[in-house]
């Protein structure tokens, strides 16, 4: 039997001073053999999405964090068996180097850039001449006020002594006072303090599980999710309310929607259209040899109709420039498609979509939505949109009143296509019908223009041959 040498890789600070990252996806699985610098996973920080290369060569033993989780810097994320050891060893904290805030084997603490002081009290060599504790730190004239924050002067003894004194003071007071009460100021990082304050959690009531008794985010979470049970509540255990932190795409979407809804005066118009002919055309197009392999979706034809109609009504493809008090009529249509993704709503856009042939547009749409669903949309694809379609029909609903993508003048919601009784050539027939909803910014698009544009889109879908007249 070969002996395993297990090594753990902890999440490093890949930017300058980042404290956490979201693990987007694993690029390796348990049992995989990895080489040094082989990408292990992709993480996204506040600054960038990057791949983390393996510091070790060996076999992946364990993935310690699931994809999608937000991980604090310094948390071990993977265990690799590097083999070749002489005896089975327990997993080590990352031996070489160290991560921000973490103490390495040689006692140094990694700070934002590089490595700071050895601050572990236990590792310090004792002074030859015993200095009585009561005498205070030798370099300080007076004992530091335990309430004052210890200052780290890049390894100067002043900071360490003050800190050590503060910790001693802390330990003494927590021993002296009643359980549940800690020292003058509970130890926690500023983001954790803020987090606790936002949630109404009193840090003084918590016991930190972090290094040196520091209260971590997880401690705050634990305190929040495990409230002290009350006798009158013990009878039934109703499902408690869940609080979902608003962040990432959801946060961005929320801000964008509020901004849009309260700056652009929205008007929404509806049009119900018999799209039976469009659906027939769709089947005929699919049979054409030059479109072999191209997915002719209803959304594609709606997109094409929107592009044709937008070319007739240029103002629909424009923006309101509040600062300049001007309307910016865009020279090209960057067609946005609202896509539901695991990470939330994103609206990637096809640049200069008006210039694309049907096959090119189909390709661009497919790529856009696939990329968005895989969560890999490049930021450039998310900016610069000028006109948007939201395909609410895929969820089986008839229509909606869409909110404008910020900065755009119009958005078209495309509802479900369903067979309905419809008067066709003087008789009630089952026909394929859908409802279009167009929201527009009334500062730019007035009722007449909006109506004409929507009617044009409707006409193109009801009778695609109308395109010849455009």
């Amino acid at each position, binding site marked *: 039997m070969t002996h395993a040498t297990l090594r753990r890789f902890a999440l490093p600070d890949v*930017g300058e001073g980042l404290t956490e990252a979201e693990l987007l996806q694993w690029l390796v699985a348990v049992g995989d053999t990895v080489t040094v*610098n082989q990408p292990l996973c992709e993480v996204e920080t506040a600054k*960038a999405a990057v791949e983390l290369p393996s510091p070790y060569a060996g076999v992946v033993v364990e993935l310690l964090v699931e994809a999608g989780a937000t991980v604090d810097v310094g948390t071990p994320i993977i265990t690799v068996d590097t083999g070749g050891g002489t005896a089975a060893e327990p997993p080590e904290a990352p031996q070489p180097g160290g991560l921000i805030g973490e103490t390495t084997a040689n006692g140094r603490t990694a*700070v934002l850039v590089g490595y700071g002081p050895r601050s572990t009290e236990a590792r310090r060599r004792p002074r030859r001449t015993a200095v009585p504790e009561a005498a205070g730190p030798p370099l300080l004239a007076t004992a530091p006020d335990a309430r004052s924050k210890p200052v780290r002067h890049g390894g100067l003894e002043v900071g360490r002594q003050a800190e050590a004194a503060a910790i001693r003071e802390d330990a003494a007071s927590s021993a002296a006072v009643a359980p549940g009460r800690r020292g003058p100021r509970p130890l926690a990082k500023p983001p954790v303090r803020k987090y606790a304050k936002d949630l109404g959690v009193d840090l003084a009531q918590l016991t930190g599980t972090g290094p040196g008794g520091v209260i971590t985010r997880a401690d705050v979470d634990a305190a929040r999710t495990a409230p002290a049970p009350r006798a009158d509540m013990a009878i039934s255990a109703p499902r408690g309310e869940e609080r979902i932190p608003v962040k990432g795409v959801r946060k961005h979407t929320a801000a964008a929607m509020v901004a849009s809804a309260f700056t652009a005066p929205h008007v929404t118009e509806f049009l119900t259209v018999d799209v039976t002919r469009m659906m027939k055309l769709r089947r005929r197009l699919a049979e054409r040899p030059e479109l072999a392999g191209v997915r002719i979706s209803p959304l594609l034809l709606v997109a094409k109709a929107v592009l044709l109609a937008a070319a007739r009504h240029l103002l629909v493809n424009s923006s309101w420039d509040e600062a300049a008090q001007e309307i910016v009529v865009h020279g090209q249509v960057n067609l946005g498609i609202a896509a539901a993704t695991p990470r939330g709503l994103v609206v990637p856009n096809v640049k200069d979509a008006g210039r694309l042939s049907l096959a090119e547009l189909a390709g661009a749409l497919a790529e856009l939505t696939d990329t968005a669903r895989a969560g890999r949309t490049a930021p450039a694809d998310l900016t610069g949109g000028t006109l948007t379609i939201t395909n609410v029909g895929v969820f089986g609903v008839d229509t909606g009143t869409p909110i404008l993508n910020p900065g755009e003048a119009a958005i078209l919601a495309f509802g479900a296509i369903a067979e309905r009784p419809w008067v066709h050539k003087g008789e009630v027939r089952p026909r394929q019908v859908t409802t279009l909803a167009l929201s527009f910014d009334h500062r730019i698009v007035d009722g007449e223009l909006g109506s004409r544009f929507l009617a044009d889109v409707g006409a193109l879908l009801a009778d695609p041959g109308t395109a010849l007249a455009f």
Partner: protein
Amino acid sequence: MTAVRNEIEAETDRAGDDPGPLPGAGAPHLPQQPDLVQLLTPEGERLEHPEYPLEVSDAELRGFYRDMVLVRRWDAEATALQRQGELGIWASLLGQEAAQLGAGRALQDGDMAFPTYREHGVAWARGVDPLHVMSLFRGVDNGGWHPRERGFALYTIVIGAQCLHATGYAMGVQRDGAESAVLAFLGDGATSQGEVNEAMVFAASFAAPVVFFCQNNQYAISVPLERQSKVPLYRRAAGFGFPGVRVDGNDVLAVLAVTRAALRAAREGQGPTFIEAFTYRMGAHTTSDDPTRYRLAHEVEEWKLRDPIARLKAYLSRSGLADAAFFDGVEAEADELAGRIRRGTVEMPDPPPTAMFDGVHAEMTPPLAAQRAAFEAYQASFEGGAA
């Protein structure tokens, strides 16, 4: 060095001439650049330039290839080490190898170079051990080399500040009557800094023996050059009163020829020159940066076609100056270097605490000596003796 002297006049003279096939013409989506000095096209074709004749031996050509491959491998390893938590940050030189090696190899022994924080290729050319650069980015020291021994100042993080140091140093060289030149490195973004402009005013006024070598990598972090300057950067030199040249920064031979000529002019007392090495930062500004937020992938793809290493490799193989065994040998050497850098970085020891007293002054002063002695005594007061 009349070639460089005449650059400003030549610009107007050239207007009427038939320029022939223009440098940059072969590269897609790049405007033709009649003023671009190029000796090796992106396709690896050797050109001659009337003002910049270059004699270069086969061994030197192979040496440039080796230099660039090794430096690029070092850069890749450093980037990976940062992602593994072993470096605080890393500024990648990917794509700028030719600009840095061409300029670095143009320097002579007595010359002095003042780098920014990205000049790993110049450091290599000056014989600086890569681990001495790694120690800076690991936060162990401020750079482990001796500036005077290597003719290479410590990295300067403050944007553009090194230009003042370079001009001041050059004025000192001038007053010493020494036969050496000074090479100041800067980026395109630095040209907007006050210090850089002040340095150029002084350099021009005193005809200081300094060459300003600007690697225009197109972005000041995320700000594209067109937001920084309404004129091509090399033309700014005319306003200060010295010549400006634009050279293909991805062409190691052209960079060598142009920089050599400018340094020679400086040594001969003809004053400063501004060189704009037109290049591209293929990677992120630093490991803290995400370039996909401000530039399009197709732009990077276009510049890949102008890769500095690929064009020299094409030239070497096409003209039979190097064979597969040579290229394989360089690759193996690169891997070995990467391994040495990795081990050396991960196992890097701390400098002794007393090292902070070294190099503060040219000569140790009595007060500093006293402080050092007191500190040593204090260290010795711990059990186990002085560290």
